[in-house]
């Protein structure tokens, strides 16, 4: 880590200059070709570009392949329980507004065992970035149907094909109370992935990003064609959305103009079936934020606390002088 101060420089200056190496730790042990690798690098890049202090950054995950993510970050990390990343992350943030919080969760983690917390984390709308690593399969436990597996998926729990339609996480999130940021991207388009996570990091509330992720071990075919041919991706474009340079836009087969303040249109786009819409579906920066409520009375001094406690105890005193 280099420490620099640029007194004559016009770019924002910090009393530190963190490099990529400050955000990494160890060697990621995901399978070769797993989408996790590119997401990890992208999150590290966003942290560097935002110059987040590693000691003021906390990455909270659940269980599953995605759950290993914090182990590879040079920040504080919390690799907790299956499905429970949101409650832990919310607890971290509630009384520590100075911390930058990321939540990393998988499709089983978020949309199945932890679904209740997903619903309420969206409603709490605490400032944090939530990344849903959605590869449509349970990987770490070796190929069981996930709530986002397409209908008919052959897995070890449904060897003759899954029998229920999948949950659409984007559609679901857009239906939740107090939702303030919903975006979708893919692990294999580094430019779009970066622009999306960067936008999420700048959002004043809970930014929910579903990352369509490839699993080379168990769902090789799920996004195979789409990943090979970017024309299968539908780019949602708007000046207030996730903006790509014109050259990067050309790679997409379809571009739809979508105003991210329009939740009704966002819900329509969430239900597109003949391709994957990527971009910012919805953003509202005016929603109530529970972390602001949590931090509203921070920092009371010990003397004041003691005084107020004594006056509370007075209410229970049997002493006549207190009556």
């Amino acid at each position: 880590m280099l420490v620099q101060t640029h007194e004559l420089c016009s770019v924002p200056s910090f009393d530190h200059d963190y490099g990529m190496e400050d955000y990494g730790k160890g060697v990621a042990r995901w399978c070769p070709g797993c989408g996790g690798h590119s997401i990890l690098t992208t999150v590290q890049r966003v942290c560097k570009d935002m110059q987040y202090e590693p000691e003021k950054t906390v990455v909270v995950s659940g269980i599953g392949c995605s759950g290993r993510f914090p182990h590879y970050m040079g920040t504080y990390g919390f690799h907790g329980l299956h499905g429970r990343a949101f409650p832990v992350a919310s607890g971290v943030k509630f009384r520590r507004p100075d911390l930058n919080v990321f939540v990393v969760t998988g499709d089983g983690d978020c949309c199945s065992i932890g679904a209740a917390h997903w619903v309420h984390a969206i409603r709490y709308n605490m400032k944090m970035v939530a990344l849903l690593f959605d590869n449509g399969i349970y990987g770490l436990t070796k190929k069981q149907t996930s709530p986002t597996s397409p209908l008919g998926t052959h897995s070890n729990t449904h060897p003759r094909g899954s029998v229920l339609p999948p949950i659409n996480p984007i559609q679901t999130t857009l239906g939740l109370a107090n939702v303030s940021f919903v975006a979708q991207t893919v692990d294999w388009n580094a430019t779009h992935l970066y622009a999306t996570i960067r936008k999420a990091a700048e959002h004043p509330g809970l930014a929910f990003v579903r990352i369509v992720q490839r699993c080379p071990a168990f769902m090789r075919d799920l996004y195979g064609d789409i990943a090979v041919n970017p024309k299968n991706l539908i780019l949602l474009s708007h000046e207030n959305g996730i903006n790509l340079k014109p050259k990067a836009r050309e790679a997409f087969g379809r571009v739809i103009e979508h105003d991210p303040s329009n939740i009704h249109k966002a819900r329509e786009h969430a239900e597109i079936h003949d391709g994957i819409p990527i971009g910012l579906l919805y953003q509202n920066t005016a929603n109530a934020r529970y972390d602001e409520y949590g931090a509203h009375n921070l920092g009371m001094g010990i003397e004041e606390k003691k005084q107020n406690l004594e006056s509370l105890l007075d209410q229970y005193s049997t002493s006549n002088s207190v009556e």
Partner: protein
Amino acid sequence: MDYNVSGDILNEGDRIKPRKIKQAIVEIVSDSGEGAQKCGQSFGAISAKMGNGVWTVEIIPAEIQPPARSREGASGIRVRIGSDKVTNMGNHADLVIALNEQVVYGRIRQDAYNGNTLMFIENKWAKSEQETIRQQYSEALLKFKELGIKVVEIPMEEECLKLMPDPRKGKNMWILGLLCYMYDRDIPKAENQIRRIFKKKTDAVIDLNIKLLHAGYDWARGNLPFRYEVTPMDVDDDMVVMNGNEALSMGVMASGIELCSMYPITPATSVSHHLAENFERVGGIVHQAEDEISAIGFAIGASFAGKPAVTVTSGPGLALKTEFIGLAVMAEIPFVIIDVQRGGPSTGLPTKVEQSDLLAAIYGEAGDAPKIVLAAATIEECFHFVVLARKLAESFRTPVILLSDANLATGVQPFPRPKIDPLWLTNPIDQSPWKDGAWPFEWDENTGTSKRPIPGQKGGMYTVTGLAHGQTGKVAYDPEINQASVESRSRKIASFQKSLKPPSINGDPEGDVLLVGWGSTLGAIEEAVADARAEGLKVSSLHLRFLFPIVPGLVDIFKRFKKVITVEINYSDTLGNPMVTQENRRYAQLAWLLRAKTLMDIDCFSNVYGQPLNPEKVLKMIKRELKIENSEVNV
């Protein structure tokens, strides 16, 4: 107590000199929503303020508005006041005030009354328009009289109608007035109490209730041929009077904890109500989570980030929290879990007392997950043990479970006003750089303890994980590391145990029977032991506060008694019942634990009627054990 009542009310009772008595047990029973508890709590609070010892027990139906005049729907309160410290609910009531006859039946079944009990019963039912009601009423009165209860019908409704059109919600303060006359309570204190409990209401409501108080007082003065005085204690100490859940809440605030993360559950919720009302004034906050699991996860997240946290729950909630408790043990995250126990298993008896979570608290997690488990025995301890729990959690980097129960939750008792130490309120958040090169789990070889990095500390970055990990915090792929880390976490609990002293014995250090209790049964056990000793029996008792790790010195104490018996409010098989043998008999939870810890043949006396223990039942058991004649085996 001799009331000398013939059944008819005398009309010339004025200016009677109160007779001094040592103690009185008063019950008020009613339909739900008639304010019996408010009346009884006020009577208790006024008495405490006058310097009496007080213990209250609420009688709570499971529903909010059960059908009127139903036996199961009885709602009410018992208040025991005394010239000395009162530590339990006592045996039979001296006085019961009943707002209808049906609600009395349940209490009779629970053996709350006997031939010395005086009953004041609302007389309006005798004139009911419905014949069935008139009939039920007269039948009940006959039955009560057969049982030896002295029944006096009084015109509560009629008198209150003089002040308000619908006395359903006013009668309670009229009764308070009657009680204030009968037990010579201080009327200005009663008026202040009314102002306090109705502080959120309009002046008109307060005025009306004060008028009702006076009306009840005046009616009693004009009609009761007797009056009592329970002489107060001589105490110089500044006392506070509150119930156990209020004491837990005050303890949370005084402990320096600044977040209570909870989900509503009976009978724990009123801790959070009290906190919600007051916590922000002392720099804290309540988070109502979406479920029990989230509530504990949130507390763990906050504590990981350096903010002391507590989660408050009851049995079913504790069950849901076990996975997270295991994680907190594994990841060594300090925080406090308060379990206000109720009847179980499953939804069980939500409003009733039981001590059935002991083994679940100690052993409830998958895998080896040692942690500290404490149990408060008094309302005063409800306060101080939260302070202690936070301190232990941080010193030993572990979750601490503090057990209370439904009896302590709503019981009211005065205790010396706590002297708040500013050191309790300090925050562990340390943002100075982490010692260069130090590991996040640098376990001391001798004690197993270690210091934790907190987000914000430069150089301390590490990842908490529920996976097996060594001192570096990194996932362990080496089996040696797992063995060493489980050993370390066990060692720190042993380190704590080494700092404990053997428990003190109530009574002689040797004898025929030693009773061992834990939790809210302290007062009833010690009163029974005192009564037994007064009769010359060689009985002693001891009470455990530290359940895990268990206090030292028990074997040495136990072997000086011919028999050791635990007294608990939880289930145990009774020898002699079908299928029960010495081999398959299931023991009460503390007995099970003590048998395992001491390899001694420890017996148990326990039941699950959902009622607080009373001294008489314990005394009967003692006599039965000592094979003393004339002791009924009916417990």
